[in-house]
């Protein structure tokens, strides 16, 4: 682990360099899968930012994710066809949602945060299912027009173009986050996590730092929601379901919690494992359609077998 950790600064650029040529190597199906993984990976990175770096374990980042996705889908339906505009609007909506809900989250600690965020995520999904005039309820919103990333660029009609767009966005956003976390701002956040009492004593507004982290994570999740709409051309309340929260939290647990890149890799690992298990016959029966079973099983295995990373760290000061 420690070798891996020492290589972390190089890890992210290396990952992007490996992923870039995949657009020309993989077939359409694999490209599509990898694109979905990147979208979930960005959501997982937002969870990692809160859970690992800020110390607020969350099951509710699907809430700003849904808010972002519905914002993007609504823009598409109103003929806003510039990808970056959709992305920024969705990120802003996700961040705004987080700003409004921040008082619920930033004063709580530990599993209480898990409780509150889980309720927030479920409530947001319920709103998405009920508020028919805006969300079309459980039918979901179709957003069929493919966006052009920037004015003057081609529209994202092929899987390869979509993949490259999503990869670029994820690379930029995660890259920026990594730089911010390496700056003094990141140190303040980690210090607030590890020594809250000392930070308070020396006059640092811990809740303020956590609010900033929570809003930033909401922006990332909102951006991931916009990418979801670009990829799927559709959003429904199910996109923010229990199994998605579970999937991204699991990705973060596997990825080692404090690492955004780990969250991206974790998302890939979880989705690949889930699809691999679902695609095979087990004892004469297919596991397709049993995503919760597979995810839950992986969850239990990880809690027992992977005490390091997220879980091991937490015990040190709890």
């Amino acid at each position, binding site marked *: 682990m420690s070798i891996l950790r020492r290589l972390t600064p190089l890890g992210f650029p290396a990952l992007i360099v490996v992923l870039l040529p995949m657009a020309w190597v993989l077939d359409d199906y694999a490209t599509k899968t990898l694109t979905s993984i990147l979208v979930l990976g960005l959501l997982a990175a937002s969870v990692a930012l809160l859970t690992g770096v800020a110390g607020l374990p969350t099951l509710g980042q699907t809430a700003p994710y849904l808010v972002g996705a519905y914002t993007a889908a609504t823009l598409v339906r109103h003929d806003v066809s510039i990808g970056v505009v959709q992305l920024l609007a969705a990120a802003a909506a996700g961040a705004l949602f987080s700003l409004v809900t921040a008082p619920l989250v930033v*004063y709580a600690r530990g599993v209480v945060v898990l409780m509150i965020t*889980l309720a927030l995520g479920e409530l947001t999904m319920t709103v998405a299912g009920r508020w028919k005039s805006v969300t079309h309820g459980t039918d979901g919103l179709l957003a069929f027009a493919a966006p052009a990333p920037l004015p003057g660029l081609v529209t994202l009609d092929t899987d390869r173009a979509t993949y490259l767009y999503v990869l670029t966005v994820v690379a930029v956003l995660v890259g920026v986050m990594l730089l911010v976390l390496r700056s003094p701002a990141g140190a303040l956040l980690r210090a607030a996590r590890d020594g809250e009492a000392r930070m308070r004593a020396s006059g640092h507004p811990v809740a303020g730092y956590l609010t900033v982290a929570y809003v930033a994570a909401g922006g990332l999740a909102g951006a991931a929601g916009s990418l979801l709409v670009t990829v799927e051309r559709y959003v429904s309340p199910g996109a923010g379901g229990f199994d998605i929260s579970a999937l991204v939290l699991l990705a973060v647990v596997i990825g080692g919690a404090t690492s955004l890149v780990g969250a991206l890799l974790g998302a890939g690992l979880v989705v690949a494992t889930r699809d691999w298990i679902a695609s095979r016959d087990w004892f004469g029966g297919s596991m397709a359609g049993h995503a919760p079973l597979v995810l839950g099983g992986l969850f239990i295995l990880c809690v027992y077998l992977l005490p390091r990373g997220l879980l091991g760290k937490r015990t040190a000061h709890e």
Partner: protein
Amino acid sequence: MDAYLIPAVDGVGYGLLLFVVAAGLTLAFGVGDVLNLAHGTLFAFGAYAAAKVSDGTWLSLALAVLVGTAAAAAGGAVLSALLVPLAGRGHLAQALLTFGVALVVGDLLVGLFGPDELPVKVPALLDRPVDIAGHSYPGYRLAFIGVAALIAVVLYVVVARTRVGSLVRATVDDRDMVATLGVNPFMVRTGVLAAGGALAGLAGALGAPIIGPGPRTADLVLMLSLVVVVLGGLGSIGGAFVAAIAVGEIQTIGVTSEVTQDFAPFLLFGAMAVVLSARARGLLTSRRSAA
């Protein structure tokens, strides 16, 4: 005002149902120090038991309540055993394990009972409307309100007046001191998880005609009871009672009026926001003094 009478009565029933479930969750958290994210699944045990065992006779209803309660209590005890290897790993690992168990068992329940919501039969005597102030009202719900109120009273008496209850309150206040007094913490945890599970199963079996068994039941019940526990203050049974009635009223009156129908979930957000921002520091300080 008259139009709101029936929803208001409904809200009391819904609230009492939530209270019985949430009391189990808050006990497990306050006493056992475990955030049981499989609590909604234990409720589903009871609800499925009611749907499968109860066939319209009183005996079958009693049997369903018994089976549902026992199954959920056993589920709680199994959870406690599963948590043993995680000793010393902190709250988060425990919560994540129960979350994994909830996903697995939820999927198994759907596999066993199908993806549809199941209808629940109740005895004919209860399956007809009764008259309240000129409105007809489902007899079962009225009977449920009576039974659930009785459960709430019994629960209060047990916690406030018995030796077991004083142990429970002492553990909420100072877990380490109780352990020092020679009470085995593992037995306490297993006891409260089983008792909490029993409450969830009991609520599920009795409340199945109100929140029916289906694939979304566990999530819905878990979410609502988490809201109740957070609003009521962690580990507080009295707080859970007030919060549960409030949430029940929001859920029923909120969806009655045309205007607020779409916004009932927002009302829950709002209630959480108001209470948590008013009590936020209190919550934090009480956690710190306990730690």
